[in-house]
């Protein structure tokens, strides 16, 4: 496969380096996945808790390779007319009208039904040709001339039927349109495909089998500190350390929704806005709603706030 800027994908360290320069700090596993996805020409199925940067990975990859990122957001009821292609019905109708008027000219000289039909046949199926085809994300990705990054977001939200629809695309990089035939990806320009899932339901084995499987867990403290530093560069190192220690401890607690990386970053930004130098219990109490999204979680944490904050302060 030879796509633009593919030297950036030559080994894992290179990938990590390039990601880092774009502000996406990733673990070795993530870089390995991107590396393999490119070299094996396989889609990557990314799973993990919400807010760990699954979607971001695809977007950053697109940015890194300077390729367009085509996104297909999945939802219940998504079907082929929205994901693959649709006929431009309006245009077809309009052309039918035009044809009606000029039919006389076309059939000029033909005598009898058989001859007229023959003459019409010679025009071919113009109404079901590419000109009347409205490509949707999947088809667009296949036809992208410079290759592209295709992000199929939250594939678990779609129906089972849609999953089966994806299989042809994922394993052979082709799509079949009954009226036209099979559309294949341009050789050497296959799109890099990322699928993300939040595990609201099991993805079928058939789909999993065709993908590399990457599980992105919550980062460890060290990685998270680097992420915060990359995203919120103005944060003082001490605060960064306290903040991450605090979040890491929250993740150990029994909460309805534990804070993810995106929340950590939001919180870091909040604290910077408030000109904070160091965590203290009062401040944490006031800003807790940035990292916790359920009232019952807020209550659980508040009762142990003092202890957790002190431990976080000590950790720095």
């Amino acid at each position, binding site marked *: 496969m030879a796509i633009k800027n593919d030297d950036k994908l030559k080994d894992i360290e290179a990938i990590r380096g390039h990601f880092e320069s774009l502000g996406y700090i990733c673990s070795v596993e993530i870089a*390995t996945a991107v590396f393999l996805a490119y070299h094996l020409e396989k889609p990557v199925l990314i799973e993990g808790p919400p807010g760990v940067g699954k979607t971001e990975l695809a977007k950053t990859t697109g940015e890194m390779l300077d390729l367009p990122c085509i996104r297909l957001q999945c939802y219940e009821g998504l079907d082929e007319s929205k994901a693959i292609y649709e006929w431009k019905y309006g245009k077809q109708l309009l052309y039918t009208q035009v044809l009606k008027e000029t039919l006389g000219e076309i059939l000029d000289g033909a005598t009898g039904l058989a001859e007229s039909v023959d003459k019409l046949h010679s025009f071919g199926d113009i109404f079901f040709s590419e000109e009347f085809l409205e490509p949707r994300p999947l088809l667009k990705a296949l036809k992208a001339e410079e290759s592209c990054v295709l992000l199929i977001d939250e594939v678990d939200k779609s129906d089972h039927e849609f999953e089966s629809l994806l299989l042809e695309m994922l394993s052979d990089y082709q799509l079949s349109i009954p009226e036209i035939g099979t559309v294949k990806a341009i050789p050497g320009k296959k799109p890099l495909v990322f699928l993300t899932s939040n595990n609201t339901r099991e993805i079928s084995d058939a789909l999993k089998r065709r993908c590399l499987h990457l599980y992105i867990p919550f980062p460890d403290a060290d990685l998270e500190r680097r992420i915060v530093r990359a995203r919120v560069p103005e944060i003082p190192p001490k605060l960064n350390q306290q903040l991450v220690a605090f979040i890491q401890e929250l993740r150990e607690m029994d909460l309805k929704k534990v804070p993810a990386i995106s929340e950590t970053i939001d919180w870091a930004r909040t604290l910077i806005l408030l000109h904070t130098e160091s965590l203290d219990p009062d401040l944490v109490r006031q800003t807790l709603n940035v990292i916790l999204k359920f009232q019952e979680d807020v209550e659980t944490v508040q009762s142990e706030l003092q202890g957790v904050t002190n431990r976080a302060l000590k950790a720095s």
Partner: protein
Amino acid sequence: MTEMHDTLVEFVKVLRTADVKVSPAETLDAMETLDIVGIENRSLLKNSLSMVLSKTPEEKEAFNTSFDRFFAYNKFSSENEAGEPGEDTNQDDGDFDPGSDGSDQQSGQGSGQGGGQGGGAETSEELDFDLLEAQSELGKLLLSGDRMKVMVKMAEAGRQVEVNQIVVFTQKGLYTRKIMEAMGLKGLQDEVGELQEEGGRPQMHLAGQLKAARDYLREQVRDHVEKQFLLHADESGKELREELLKKVKLSNLEKRNFKDVQEIVFKMAKKLISIHSKRRKTFKRGQLDVRKTLRSNMQYDGMLFDLKWKSQKVDRPKVMCICDVSGSVSNYSRFLLMFLYSLSEILPKVRSFAFSSDLGEVTRLFGQSKLEDAMAKTMRDYGNGSTDYGQMLADFRSHILKDVDSKTTVIILGDARNNYGDPKSEILREVYDKAQRVIWLNPEPKSSWTVGDAEMKKYAPCCHQTEVCNSLMHLERVVANLLRVAV
């Protein structure tokens, strides 16, 4: 790379016994991955294979333990670390290949060795201490300090001597020797002997190194064999045990097996769920989906004749499960309830009742507490007292019969031993008329269904189906049938 591919196939086998589902297609993918990432960088290899072969967090965990066990290999000695895996993995493949090709032909090993030793004599003339190199295949490999290659070689040798056939602990010594031999122990020994005969200082030094490496290797091989034993003998043991447990009578299961059984029950339920939860039926009635209809009928010039409906319905059976929990059959009910609860994901409408004489609903109890507690509470509340099927049926009619409709399946689990009381089979007849199906599961063998105080003879005509059910196998079959009929 072929031999590494073979080793990979072995590894996939191990993964399968460890409950990681790996399809042949994925095995092929793994081989391709191997060609790309090479084997020199262990953690890279592990990460890569993990992505290709294991597809859920649980599988990833199993993969990690299996990988560590299967490819376990410690360093020879710290001095040899110089030859640690290089960064540029792809290029290193090149010099690995010829080595492996040579060792592939084990028969040719001996003759190849002769030439090797000749070479050894030549180099010994150079007095440079460090340049003296081992000449035998194995010696070279060991002194190169490349753990991954040694490990691959070992795994390959293990495959040749079929170490995965190891069944009992006492075979370990045998297999260790066999593997060492297959790896070219003889060549190494000869070389050591020759070096010692020659007797120069560099030769002695090399001989010493080789001997140390050999002893170390022996330890490693022993370790390897032990791990293989754990991997193969132990895991297949587990499989065997699970198969057995499925067939064993539920009442004979011992308490210590309960955990295993629960696991099996869970697996079975999962299997059934995956088979059945996907069947969907498109509704032919209901609310018209105007948008969808217009859209799909545009191709017919806006003539609406292909109608689309809003809802799709997953048709799942409504199940009512009545369990006899009196002393004699309580063990069986325990498993039926367990099973139905694991199935509750696809059968959201399971209602469970327990009785020995008075009928009580335990659905809510099961929904709220853990399986263990719920079981214990059910037994406590309903488990004592003598069995009275007549009373149970009367209770059923007065409280629950109104909820029974033509989609309901009623499962009764009991031995139908009514202590010579009034069986009231006419009530069961009523249920039979109203419900879609009435299934009676009897843990006793058919021959004793009519013996003594058993009333199966009277109840059986009022059931759509009567089955002997006293093992997990039976249970699985019944539930599978239930789903098939209902969906």
